[in-house]
């Protein structure tokens, strides 16, 4: 066995569900500790490290499904999506997508993972310099509409089919009831970073559409016009513009 074959063997032996029988053909048994036990040290550490890493980012999910089920979901996931990155921060990158296509899981499980990954994304994002609120507010509306304004990479939006906002509140407040099932109710959440903490904004449908429009449109006018047309009352129009002003005021947009 050359050194590359040895590494291939040891890698497979660490991630395998069952420890291989031939450890003593590859590893030394010395100092009163057999090869199987020595391999076991690495196998155990791998499991602990991966679980702890996912637990750190998916605390709400673990609380909702329970520790045992969470552990089982982690291992199912890692079989399909082992880490390929230099950092464990990326370990959960595909967790939500993976959970959402598992037929044996209720749909809110994947949604909870998506919420928690949005927090990770917001926390870690590299942001360009935000658009200046004073400068923007001084512009005539026509000029403002021609500006290409985009949400910062740390200003992350997700739309859920369950009321995960109140569920997350309960988790943060440590008032989550055991066995809780989130209520089916559309919920639009925007995550943003303020003083290096990730915060949440729950927004109504029109504001959500404006946020999406800003992500996808050529300029502010293109994002605003179709949403403004949906606002049926002056009150709705006012709320929509208030959302935009809040985002600019919190420095969550940048000029692309």
């Amino acid at each position: 066995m050359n050194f590359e074959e040895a590494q291939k063997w040891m890698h497979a032996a660490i991630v395998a569900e069952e420890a291989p029988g031939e450890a003593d053909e590859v590893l030394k048994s010395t100092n009163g500790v057999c090869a199987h036990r020595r391999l076991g040290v690495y196998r155990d550490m791998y499991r602990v490290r991966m679980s702890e890493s996912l637990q750190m980012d998916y605390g709400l999910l673990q609380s909702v499904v329970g520790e045992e089920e969470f552990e089982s979901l982690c291992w199912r996931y890692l079989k399909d999506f082992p880490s390929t990155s230099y950092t464990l921060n990326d370990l959960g990158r595909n967790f939500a997508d993976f959970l959402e296509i598992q037929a044996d899981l209720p749909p809110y499980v994947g949604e909870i993972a998506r919420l928690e990954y949005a927090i990770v994304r917001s926390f870690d994002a590299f942001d360009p310099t935000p658009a200046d609120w004073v400068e923007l507010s001084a512009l005539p509306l026509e000029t403002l509409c021609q500006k290409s304004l985009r949400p910062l990479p740390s200003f992350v939006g997700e739309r859920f089919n369950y009321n995960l906002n109140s569920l997350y509140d309960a988790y943060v407040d440590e008032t989550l009831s055991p066995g809780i099932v989130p209520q089916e109710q559309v919920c639009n959440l925007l995550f943003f970073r303020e003083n290096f903490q990730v915060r949440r904004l729950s927004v109504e449908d029109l504001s959500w559409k404006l946020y999406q429009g800003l992500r996808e449109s050529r300029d502010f006018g293109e994002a605003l016009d179709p949403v403004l047309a949906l606002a049926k009352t002056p009150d709705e129009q006012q709320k929509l513009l208030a959302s935009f002003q809040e985002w600019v005021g919190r420095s969550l947009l940048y000029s692309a």
Partner: protein
Amino acid sequence: MLSVAEQCSNLGFGVGLRTVHYTDFMESCPEVDWLEALTENYLGTGGRPRQVLRQLSMRYPIVLHGVSLSIGGSSPIDRHYLKLLKVLADEVQARWISDHLCWTGYAHHNLHDLLPMPFTEASLAHVKNRVDEVQNYLGRAILLENPSSYASFVFDGISEAQFLREIVLSTGCGILLDVNNVYVSSVNHGLDAKVYIDTLPAEAVGQFHLAGHSQREGYLLDSHIGPVPEPVWDLFRYTLARVGSRASLLEWDEEIPSLEVLLEENEKAKTLAALPSPAIQIHPELHL
């Protein structure tokens, strides 16, 4: 290329920068000679950690210590990782960059562990080439740390210390000598820790690590928990006499105490380093 001697001045006694101490460092600027940052915690992130490190680099000398270079791995060196590392090192004016003599995975799958090298002539040549590649890219010599190990291969032909020595002599890289790791591995494999220290070229040692470990059934685990145990202090005394004083760093990663406790532990290392070194003899059976 910047050599080990050009980079590794004796910075004194540093501590590993950990999230729980960010506020202490940012608000009260405690007296610490230098900080070691875990490279991967600051790569590819634009959040608080990177901002904190950037600000602290204006007040403290920073050294970057990585765990994912996989210098002994079979997959090609990750150029994207190197690129990010170089940018970060420039940004925080890293005094030097270190990683481990190990491999971390196979076929681009990262197990995020410091896995034991097979010590053969072929793997030695392989690692030498990769160290050259990394150093050429970074434009500076790197330091390689001896990891703690819990297993070794039946076909190993040379010792870890000899392996490390050969890499250093061939590539000009330096050594981050982790005294706790030497102790842990020597107990786990029934080897003589002093022979390990004696085998290394002293002039290539650029930095020391000190840490605690845990007793497990039949072996020691490099857990970085608790104060530095007495046998590790003993080996540190021996190392100081053999190698001389170097930039030293205390690692404490499990049940991390207050910064005050961490700095008290660091004082012990300072005291030892200040004592006159006893004359020692290199192991009589060692032929280098």
